[in-house]
């Protein structure tokens, strides 16, 4: 019968339709679950995972005080107050409360900001303290919210400001230690990722829950001694006042370790209010960032080179005519009249340029500064005393300076003749101080360092005493001779200033300042420096003083030396150095 055939055929049609639809399902499911799996897994993460950042606490910075860590930089939580103008009910109440509680923190145009009802987020006050924030919260204002922000606090005010640097509004460390060690200080923010249900209640489902605690930043202890730093800043300020200089730097280093005991720059600023600084030059740590022609201080290095090479001895003599000609270019002395056959000690005492050009000549064939003389000088100045290159001190924005090699077009005999008395090269105070330290400490070069250790779990964890990066920079005997020369030089004119029973030596410097157009030197401006040390048998501190000012002719002996003397006499007591002999 036809009917039966029909039933079967209809049944087949059902089966076909069913299989057709199901094959669409299979294809679609393959697309959704296999091909698009990544896409949907990402969407799932997006809505199911609640991601939070656990902010790491920025590391604290300590100075030392009597050998113990003493806080220089701390953190405090302040609040940024924001408004959601769209849901503010009573604008006048918000205005009244904010003015009453946090008047000084308000943005000047905050009332206008509250009227922007198409906006959901307007910052109306910043740096509100916890106390103020609590008071505002008590008022129960609708549409006002708080955001906790960590900011730096400086219990010592502007002390060592350029050494520290500052932290900007984005939490980024700039300049100084904050800039150089930003990553270490910042630490690593923790992550908190939780799978939550639709109302953000955490679930214990799956393997996507992440809890990485924040790693707080390193708490760094500086080699800076807060008392020495403080005294150095005062002495420098007094020096500026006395001399009329506008800029000054003092660098105090332990010559037997390279540790910076103080590093002061004026003018300075308060890092808590870095945003009020109008001249960004104030952020610069001139002791490391501003190369200059170091001048006569470098004569000691020339002398050390000569002695170390065995071409001169302090008591050797030369004919001083107050002028010396190199390749048709005549070099004169600043102090005239010490003419005749004089010793190199005399040349150092009176800072006579001719004496040190002579040393340079004797490094060559005795008459000219030969290529080999220049190479020797370059080896000592650049490779051993490390002038004209970065020292690697742990501070941001260090500048390398320039020292021309003999194979350089600029590295001719005239250049090296001027370098013998400290002109014609660019170096920073820290470079000169570090090289000088190596010369006087028996010949060990220490990298200048400012990091003394860390505070870990509230206890001081000093790093190992620095080791010299190079020994035998000069011979031990050279070092002894140089100290004797400098002590003699200082004693001959300024010995009466020093405390008895100590060995104080040093060298004045009056550097000419190169003209900005590169044509010679300014005739109305000079930088006064004094580079000296003190101690008993061995030097225990090196102090570098530098004073300068636009259009000011400052002199090493007259202007910089008193600052050295002031600090030197004080520091002997502070460091409790016992007199000898």
């Amino acid at each position, binding site marked *: *019968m036809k*009917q*039966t*055939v*029909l*039933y*079967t055929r*209809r*049944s087949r*049609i*059902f*089966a076909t339709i*069913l*299989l057709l*639809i*199901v094959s*669409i*399902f*299979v294809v*679609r*499911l*393959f697309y*959704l*679950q*296999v091909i*698009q*799996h990544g*896409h*949907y*897994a990402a*969407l*799932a993460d997006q*809505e*199911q995972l609640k991601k939070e950042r656990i902010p790491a606490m920025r590391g604290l910075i300590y100075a030392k005080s009597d050998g113990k860590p003493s806080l220089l930089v701390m953190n405090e939580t302040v609040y940024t107050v924001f408004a959601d103008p769209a849901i503010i009910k009573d604008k006048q109440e918000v205005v009244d409360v904010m003015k009453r509680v946090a008047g000084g923190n308000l943005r000047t145009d905050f009332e206008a900001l509250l009227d922007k009802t198409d906006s959901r987020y307007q910052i109306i006050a910043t740096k509100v303290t916890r106390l103020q924030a609590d008071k505002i919260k008590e008022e129960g204002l609708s549409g006002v919210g708080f955001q906790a922000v960590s900011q730096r606090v400086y219990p010592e005010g502007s002390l060592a400001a350029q050494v520290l640097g500052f932290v900007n509004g984005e939490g980024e460390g700039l300049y100084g230690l904050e800039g150089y060690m930003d990553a270490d200080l910042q630490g690593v923010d923790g992550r908190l990722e939780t*799978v939550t*249900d*639709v*109302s953000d*209640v955490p*679930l214990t*489902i*799956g393997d996507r829950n992440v809890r990485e605690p924040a790693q707080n930043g390193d708490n760094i202890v500086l080699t800076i001694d807060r008392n020495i730093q403080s005294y150095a800043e005062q002495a420098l300020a007094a020096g500026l006042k006395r001399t009329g200089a506008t800029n000054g730097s003092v660098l105090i280093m332990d010559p037997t370790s390279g540790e910076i005991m103080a590093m002061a720059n004026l003018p300075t600023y308060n890092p808590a209010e870095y945003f009020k600084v109008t001249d960004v030059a104030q952020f610069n740590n001139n002791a490391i960032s501003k190369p200059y022609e170091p001048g006569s201080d470098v004569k000691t290095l020339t002398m050390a080179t000569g002695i170390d090479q065995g071409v001169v001895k302090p008591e050797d003599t030369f004919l001083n005519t107050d002028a010396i000609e190199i390749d048709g270019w005549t070099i004169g002395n600043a102090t005239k009249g010490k003419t005749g056959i004089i010793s190199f000690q005399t040349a150092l005492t009176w800072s006579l340029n001719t004496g040190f050009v002579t040393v340079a000549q004797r490094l060559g064939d005795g008459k000219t500064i030969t290529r080999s003389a220049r190479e020797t000088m370059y080896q000592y100045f650049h490779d051993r005393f490390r002038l004209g290159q970065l020292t690697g001190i742990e501070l941001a924005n260090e500048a390398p300076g320039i020292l021309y090699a003999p194979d350089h077009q600029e590295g001719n005999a005239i250049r090296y003749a001027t370098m013998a008395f400290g002109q014609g090269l660019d170096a920073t105070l820290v470079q000169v101080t570090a090289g000088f330290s190596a010369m006087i400490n028996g010949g060990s070069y220490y990298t200048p360092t400012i990091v003394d250790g860390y505070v870990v779990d509230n206890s001081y964890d000093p790093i190992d005493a620095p080791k010299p990066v190079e020994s035998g920079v000069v011979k031990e005997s050279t070092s002894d001779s140089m100290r004797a020369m400098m002590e003699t030089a200082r004693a001959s004119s300024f010995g009466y200033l020093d405390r008895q029973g100590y060995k104080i030596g040093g060298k004045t410097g009056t550097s000419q300042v190169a003209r900005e157009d590169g044509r010679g030197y300014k005739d109305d401006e000079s930088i006064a420096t004094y580079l000296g040390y003190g101690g008993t048998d061995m030097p225990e501190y090196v102090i570098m003083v530098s004073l300068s000012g636009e259009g000011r002719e400052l002199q090493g002996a007259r202007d910089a030396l008193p600052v050295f003397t002031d600090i030197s006499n004080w520091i002997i007591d502070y460091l409790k150095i016992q007199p000898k002999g």
Partner: protein
Amino acid sequence: MEQGWRRQRSASPSGSGSVVVRKHRPDHLIALYAGMLMLIGLVLIYAIGPQRANVLNSVFGYDYSDTYFFVKQLVSFVLAVGSFVFFAMLPYKWVTRYATQLLILGLLASVILAIAAWAGLPIVQTANGATRWFDFGPLGTLQPAEVLKFGVLAYVAVFLAKKAKEGPVNDWKNTLYPVMAVTSLSLLLIVVVQKDLGTGIALAAIVFSMLFIAGLSWRNVAVLSGALLVIGLLLIVSAPHRMERVMTYLQGDSSTTQDDGTYHIQQAKIALGSGGLFGVGIGESVQASGYLPEAINDSIFAVFGETFGFVGTMALIVLFVALLMRMLRVMDRLADLRLKLLVAGVFGWFGAHVILNIAAMIGIFPLTGITLPLLSYGGTSMVFMTAALGLVYQLSRYTVHESRIKEETHEDSRSRRGVGRTRNASRRSS
């Protein structure tokens, strides 16, 4: 109607086209597949029940325990197994004999529900502005639409078989109008009064499947499909929430609106997609913790896909298809047209649920609020579904080989074996 049925019965032993067959072993695969599907559902509810309870507790302040949904589903499971067994045992003749009463019962229950809802009696449960359930307190709830669905299934099968025997299946006046009248009345109660489009679609699928198998001409298939389409469109346009669903569907992935439907489909796709090839594993579904609406009811397929991945959804689809194909096989081998149509109706019912539910979850058809049979949480739908499956299971005892149907329904059949069997069977069945 009852008289008609009696006439048919009395005529059947000698009438052409009716084959009396010996009762034999049922098709156990039907029970096996159905049982597997129900167990999968139970496992899934067990896994996501705590999340469901959590969400309801935290959002609505209920106090469901972690095992609340599992225990309730376990009760439903037992009831459903009971219902399967009951309909597998209850002689199918009861169903065919009391088809009319069953239909009337369903209609009455629906009407009473509507009146009770209108009168605000406490025996009804109202959710989302629709009253669909009787609430018998501790005895549980009952959805009269399910009774009605069953009633329509039984009644139309018997009615159509009778008409088919007489010839005029495609006769509008004698056959199609009455069927349409019964169907329309039921749809009116279910879709318009109870606002349950899903059950309505299932009902339409039941009737349409039976009509199709009974031999509805292609022309009338087209006419009825058109009519259903028009009714469907009217229903969609008349209800804003349905319109929304359709718009969501039409906009597809590019939809920028953030209405409930878009959200629902998007969350279903995230559930399926994040499941990947092998799924996130039992008890690891996050989408069930409130992201995916109706996670334990209409959206259980998506949760299943999240939990067991593509491999799981394939296995599940294979199970569903196997069960549906099994029904077609039983249908093909039933000689009695009434029984054939009963199976066709169950096929339409079950198939419509499976297809419409999955299609909505994978975003290729608008949401209709239809459950995934045997897996979705909810007692009434499962109990009635298993009742229908139990009936099919019972009917699988009366199948004969297809060739025999052909032989014996031919007037000039010369099979002796058939005659012999007939005698044998009639002795047993009496």
